[in-house]
């Protein structure tokens, strides 16, 4: 379960002054549900997810992840979260096994538990063939599988995905989407950020449209279609953010 209440994050920039990256964002994401955070580049998706993963601290507002407050108990929050982003890379000089084992240990697991869990994950993700090879020589698909195993080693209740398909080929992107669905089906709380409309349509139970740091619309696909009078997700998105001109202005900033 993720609950964000009036979450706000302001950055200080020497040239531009105070920048409100996340502005009074509130939403709830329940177990067995995928919450899609849809927004253009720079809309505040990554900052929101980093706040939930306790990589950043909110300027104001609060959030709880699996019942733990992100400010008061950041360690406990991270212990319950699997965070996968395009920016979370692998250690090239470690093998897949060493990489996953390292994160198991950092999550406080003992070596026996790690071995058992890794075997299970390698079965599920078909990783046995490259488990003892160094990550630097991996194909994109192998890297993604290893990253997934890394996020799942401690079997977290909450999964946070920040544009996980960014820059991936179709096959790898599809396997990621399949994996995200799997997480939901196992009863995990999933939050998924993207700017790809089709992914949101296919995947998300609840959609939040974020623009200029603010959550401008929220609902199921059907609810959003009804509210904006459009069938296509892209049209819904453009309407929700205030038209093409507003979107272009935001992207320019």
């Amino acid at each position, binding site marked *: 379960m993720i609950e964000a209440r009036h979450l706000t994050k302001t950055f200080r920039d020497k040239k531009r002054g105070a920048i409100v990256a996340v502005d009074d964002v509130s939403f709830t994401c329940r177990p067995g549900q995928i919450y899609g955070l849809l927004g253009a580049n720079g809309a505040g998706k990554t900052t929101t997810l980093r706040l939930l993963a306790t990589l950043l601290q909110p300027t104001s507002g609060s959030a709880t992840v699996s019942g733990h407050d992100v400010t008061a108990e950041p360690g406990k929050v991270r212990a319950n979260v699997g965070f996968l982003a395009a920016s979370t*890379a692998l250690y090239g000089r*470690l093998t897949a096994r060493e990489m996953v084992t390292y994160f198991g240990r950092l999550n406080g697991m003992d070596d026996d538990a790690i071995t058992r869990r890794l075997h299970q994950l390698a079965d599920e993700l078909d990783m046995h063939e490259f488990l003892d090879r160094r990550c630097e020589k991996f194909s994109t698909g192998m890297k993604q599988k290893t990253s997934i195993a890394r996020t799942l080693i401690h079997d977290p209740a909450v999964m946070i995905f920040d544009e996980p398909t960014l820059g991936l080929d179709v096959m790898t992107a599809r396997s990621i989407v399949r994996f995200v669905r799997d997480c939901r089906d196992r009863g995990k709380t999933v939050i998924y950020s993207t700017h790809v409309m089709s992914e949101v349509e296919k995947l998300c139970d609840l959609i939040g449209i974020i623009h200029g740091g603010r959550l401008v619309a929220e609902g199921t696909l059907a609810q959003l279609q009804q509210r904006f009078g459009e069938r296509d997700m892209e049209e819904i998105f453009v309407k929700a953010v205030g038209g093409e001109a507003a979107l272009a202005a935001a992207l320019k900033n």
Partner: protein
Amino acid sequence: MTWRYILTVYLKELKDSLRDRRTLISMIVVPTLIIPVLMFGVGTIMTKVIKQAREEGSSIVIVGGADSPGVVGGLKAAKNFHVLADPGDFKQLISDKKIRAAVEIPPHFEASLKEADGSSATVTIYHYEGELKSSLGVNELEKYFGELREKAVEARLAGRGLPVGLVKPFEVKRQNVAPPEKVGGNVIGGFIPYIIIILCFTGAMYPAMDLTAGEKERGTMETLLCSPVNRLNIVLGKFLMVLTAAITTMVLSLLSMGLSAALGISFFAGSQVPAAGGSGGGAIPLIDPLGLVGVFAMVLPVAVFFAALLLAISLFAKSYKEAQSYVSPLIIVVIMPAVVGMLPGIELTAKTSMVPILSLSLVCKEMLSGVWHWNFIALIFGSSCLYAAIALAFAVRMFNREDVMFRA
């Protein structure tokens, strides 16, 4: 702070670094291979060049001297001189390094030596200041004419029936009282801390950049920060790795320097290494082993200071390249106090004990000469520990700063 997690991070960083070619080169290859190659290579070349220069004899020209055939003949007959026939433009010849020196013999020189009236003539030697071969030529000419002068004095005294002791009322003799290890401390004691300080810094430099800015650039820093481990544990694990690299580089360098020196001495001097406490004068300088232990103990907090400072500074950078541009100029900052410590007149005082690297350089020199100023040692160790703690606290603070960790 949890040791289990610190150790987990440290062991991973150690494994990762040992698989990195660049770290291996800076930590192991440079200190163990480059130093002996430099010491042996440069040493061999220098010995050869000097030996060759001595053996080939000095090419000189004699200006004047037509009425002093004895002196000219003596110079021509001497094995260590090649006398060129035509003096020509001898100054140009010296400048062009065709000859090492020229000697101008004044008119009636030989005749004036035989005169008993005490008249004095001037022999002028022309040379090229700062040129090695030219100075060798000058030395040989001075030696030749010095001996000639002595003979002339003896002849004049004998002519008047006076004893030689008349102009030599006493002799001046040098006698060394310093034991060999103290000679070593003074001769190379200033040099060793300087080398240690630099190697300690350069050894820490590469891993510090790789473990911070390098990780940010490769995108693994965010992965690591997603783990539940407290950032303090992560910093300490990384810091221990950088410290390991600094100390390994230093220890390997010292070992390889010691071995190269020992091998070099037996190689160049025909395996005649005198034992400690042997004859003082002319002995190969030895270092007090206890002094070396002291140096290690004193360097430790400075190594901690370097490791923490380098970690904090490189953490600020977004990329490895950016980190290099911050860290490289620091080498000069580190070298300067170390060099100042080698200058004469810069002594260990309460004030200099508080200057980070300078104090280490000064106290190590003293310890290697067998002098233990316990009050200064305590003061320096204490202040170094304080600086190290400040640097480590700074590194931890940097790790907890969002604007540093996620600098856009």
